[in-house]
């Protein structure tokens, strides 16, 4: 059974969004997504300063099985990326909501958050 914490929102494309305050959100992939992908071997991160639109491809998660695109769940500017994933991509498997975070975005439009699912909605999508 996948872990889907209620303190964040989810995109149908399996990214989570956590409001860190000051209009900045952290983004990663869900426990369900990391479990479906299997052993994650590489995460291609965006660049700090990239401006992303909703649904835009911002990176790639590779597992032994396949390479999967990552889609921006909200629009905004990349203000931080999790460089530690370059050497320890398995953090996405082991701690998808913590050490496995992928990037932080300065929200361009807080209304984008309304287009995301809550934990129950996301769980219902994937059951």
């Amino acid at each position: 059974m996948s872990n889907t914490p209620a303190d964040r929102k989810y995109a149908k494309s399996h990214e989570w969004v956590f409001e860190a305050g000051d209009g900045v959100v952290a983004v990663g992939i869900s426990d369900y997504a990391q479990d479906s992908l299997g052993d994650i071997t590489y995460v291609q991160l965006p660049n700090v300063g990239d401006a992303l639109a909703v649904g835009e491809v911002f990176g790639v998660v590779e597992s032994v099985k396949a390479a999967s695109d990552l889609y921006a769940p909200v629009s905004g500017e990349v203000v931080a990326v999790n460089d530690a994933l370059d050497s320890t991509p398995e953090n996405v498997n082991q701690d998808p909501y913590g050490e496995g975070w992928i990037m932080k975005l300065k929200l361009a439009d807080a209304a984008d958050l309304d287009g995301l699912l809550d934990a129950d909605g996301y769980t219902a999508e994937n059951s």
Partner: protein
Amino acid sequence: MSELQRTPLHAFHVAHAGRMVDFAGWDMPVQYKSIIEEHKAVRTTAGLFDVSHMGEVDVSGPGALAFLNRLVTNDVSKLYPGRVLYSPMCQPDGGAVDDLLVYHRGEEDYLVVINASNIAKDLAWMRQQAEGFDVTITDRSDDYALIAVQGPRAETILQSLTGAKLGILRYYHFLEGTVAGVQCVISRTGYTGEDGFELYHAAADAPALAEALMTAGEPHGLQLAGLGARDSLRLEAGYPLYGHELEHDLSPIAAGLGWTVKFKKEGGFTGDEALAAEKSDPSRRRVVFFRTGDRRIVRAGADVLNAAGEVIGRVLSGTLSPLLGEAIGSALVPATAADQELSVDIRGTKFTLHLVKPPFVELKKSS
């Protein structure tokens, strides 16, 4: 889509949370917890694999040796009872029908082990090739289950369950004995590059044998390992997989398996003329193994480019070596290109292929 076939250990896999996938028409565990962890367990302690989907064929009769020696490229006449031989078998044009193991059990009595994906094709081919030989070919694939225990602790684990003297059993040799009370052909072979054993036994005994091995192996770090780890282990060891490095249009000469092709053996063999011609052809293709120095996996089917950016070959297998932390793989290129700069493009970034003579990691096979 027809129903997937199941090995006698199917319920065992499900009970141990195996992630089941369709492999060549079989419902098999690709992993239990993690491909990378299972891979590392085999290199450091031990792993248990269900390979019951492999095919087993009895070949017996006065013409068995002559038939087999004509059928395969390696020299079966060098075998003696208790000895195992690896060999490709080829079409007249030199392309591979399959690669297989031959077990010499006794006078006029051999067991041939073939790939699961090729069972029907191989049986038809063998029966067709048997014309004129006094030989009986019997498909025993459903009768046998096959469990592999691989890794540096494999001998210790297995020895705790058998009176057979494993210490004197050499690599590519086998003996018959009981393991946890189950009658087995105990073969010191495997597909991981580690020391280890393959246990052929009656299908009905498989669940009890698997449980006994897991119980005995637990204190030694034995882990269940799926097909995902089996593939990354064999690639790290540089072993060919039929359908990748060896194919109906890809000969053992191209695959770098020239050591298994015995042109001088008595009576010749199917494909010998084509393989000899290929061997002396400077424009032939060749399978090479590479590492990239980067973690991004180079996937099977990717184009291989020369210095001018032209497509001159393709990737046959690719994975991340869990031990090196680096992408490794194999590719098919013109033999003349093997000493030139080769590269692949992954999502717009060029990676140079550094050619390696496998194995990619130091292996500790028994000798």
